[in-house]
């Protein structure tokens, strides 16, 4: 294999990997506050993408994305107010099942609000045929946008969870909800904030990847499955882990394509994911002790 080809597979892996990573990050936020997996995360991406696409003919692109992010965050808040808060027994299993139900409802609503057609946002830089030459390999500028936005989100979340009072309160809720409440943290509001934050980040992700993956009412599910696998691989709750996990899976897929038929791509990626999890059940960057304390 020539150097250009090697680089091209590498870039292809990074493209897919960065998409997986940005989805995985959304899972981590709600997990960090509530200890549950929000299976409607993929639908937040779809909502963000679809809203921005609907707005983009009328307002400039950055504004359309901003409004889409705000609207989706509102949807996140409404979901928490109407459903999650009202659960009589908010056990992990109950909440997980509720989020699965939610994902189906949001998908059906989107089907009726919009329709079954595929849409996409315009490329942020250049257009469909623009490509950047990196040492003989080619890449769409949109991939750089995805990577850049993922990096900004990771840094933002790192700072937010480590250094702000709200972020730290949210982490406290995840470690021990009773202790957090005893310390005077309003745990219910923290859950609301976490839903809003993950919906907002999901929406932003949905917008950045839309030119590459295209957006359809049911595109959330398949994205969420990969994102979920990546979140586990990287260590649930760890955003840097999500990026490393995402790029790892992306690269594994890309290089499996280079030697084996494309059809085996997912099988290879998932098998290696399983092997890693047998060896390191807490994921690549997850802490073993922390995992033992969690319910899920």
């Amino acid at each position, binding site marked *: 294999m020539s150097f250009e080809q090697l680089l091209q597979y590498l870039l292809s892996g990074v493209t897919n990997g960065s998409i997986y990573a940005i989805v995985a990050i959304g899972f981590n936020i709600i997990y960090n506050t509530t200890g549950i997996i929000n299976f409607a995360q993929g639908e937040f991406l779809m909502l963000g993408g679809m809203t921005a696409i609907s707005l983009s003919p009328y307002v400039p692109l950055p504004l359309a994305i901003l409004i889409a992010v705000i609207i989706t965050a509102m949807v996140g808040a409404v979901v928490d107010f109407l459903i999650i808060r009202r659960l009589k027994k908010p056990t992990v299993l109950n909440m997980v099942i509720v989020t699965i139900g939610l994902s189906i409802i949001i998908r059906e609503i989107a089907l009726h609000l919009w*329709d079954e057609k595929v849409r996409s946002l315009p490329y942020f830089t250049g257009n469909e045929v623009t490509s950047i030459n990196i040492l003989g390999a080619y890449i769409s500028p949109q991939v750089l946008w995805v990577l850049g936005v993922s990096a900004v989100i990771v840094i933002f979340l790192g700072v937010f969870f480590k250094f702000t009072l709200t972020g730290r309160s949210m982490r406290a809720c995840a470690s021990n909800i009773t202790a957090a409440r005893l310390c005077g943290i309003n745990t219910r509001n923290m859950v609301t904030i976490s839903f809003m934050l993950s919906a907002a980040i999901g929406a932003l992700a949905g917008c950045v990847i839309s030119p590459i993956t295209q957006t359809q009412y049911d595109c959330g599910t398949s994205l969420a499955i990969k994102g979920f696998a990546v979140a586990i691989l990287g260590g649930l709750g760890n955003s840097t882990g999500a990026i490393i996990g995402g790029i790892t899976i992306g690269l594994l897929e890309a290089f499996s394509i280079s030697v084996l038929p494309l*059809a085996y791509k997912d099988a290879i990626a998932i098998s290696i994911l399983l092997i890693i999890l047998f060896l390191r059940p807490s994921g690549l960057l997850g802490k073993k002790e922390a995992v033992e304390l969690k319910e899920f």
Partner: protein
Amino acid sequence: MSFKKFCIALMCVSLIPGAFSCKKQAGETIKIGAIFSVTGPASFLGAPEAKTAEMMVEEINDKGGIDGKMLKLIVKDSAGDPAKAISFAKQLIEEDKVFAIIGPSTSGETMKIKAICEEGKTILVSCAAAEVIVNPVAKYVFKSPQKDSDAVQSIYNVMKKKGIKSIGIVSSNDGYGTAGKDQLEKLAKKNGIQILISEVYDKKATDLTGVLTKLKAKNVQAVINWSIVPAQSIIAKNMKQLNMDVPLFQSHGFGNIKYVKEAGEAAEGIIFPCGRLLIAEDLPENHPQKAVLMKYKKNYESEYGEDASTFGGHAYDSLMILVEGIKRGGADKEKARGAIENMKGFAGTGGIFNFSPADHNGLDINAFEMLTVKGGKFVKYEDK
């Protein structure tokens, strides 16, 4: 007579006209089942098909039905899922007792219900393309879209003129993709074309740069993509992004202007075989399909405010072939089936249909025209 008995008697009497009117209505309507993937990954096919069928049934009923018999269309959304198609087909045949079924939209679904319709002695006019639907011939199963093998041959003809000898194929992992891939591989040798690489991608694939890198490394002279899913636009974009400057050929599944819009500038120069609907305006006035195409296109576009696609055209053909069969054979399943089987020279959107007991598709290679994309529009492909 006690009050209770009187009430019962009253109820019975009141039911009689109802019973009569029911019976009368049943004699005057012909129930037609339709299985389309209105939602899901094949919604590009199913949605325009369902809209077309509804529009045409309304039009026929407004004009007094077929010999005074009204049509009743029962549309089921299979979401592209063969399992759902199976249960809908059973439901339509056994519970609704339909006269015939049009659809399903995809080849995979059609193959699953082929035997069910055959056993239920119910006419099926499929809107899916794969050749296996009518080869081997099943007595009650017809299809309206053109043959895969003719599409493949049309592509190879262009390749031969362009001097393309070694190609790479990518196809989706659904019924349509698999059937097309088989035909491409089968006919390659006869046409002196060498397939250097043939890859299958997931029908929900969102990025294909990896597999295209592999094709690029093999130095293919052209790429053929065979699918009906949105990946058709993605592949065009990814090829440009990878700076691959070989021609891209697509199947007749590309016949929807929305795919062109999604691919934007990357769609320019894609070559694909297609029915004449997309270039109806450019056909000469004396072309036998001109009137049918223009009328369908105008009606569809004014009714739904969106561009007509060849897929909606397949539903038009399936329904109109069936209607023509009923007109000629009468509202009797066996006679209508026989009438369809012997129908000749029927001008539809997909071509001029000439059915025979051995050919339940009725179209030949002349049904195809090679098209290309120029300035975001479909135009006839001219050899350079």
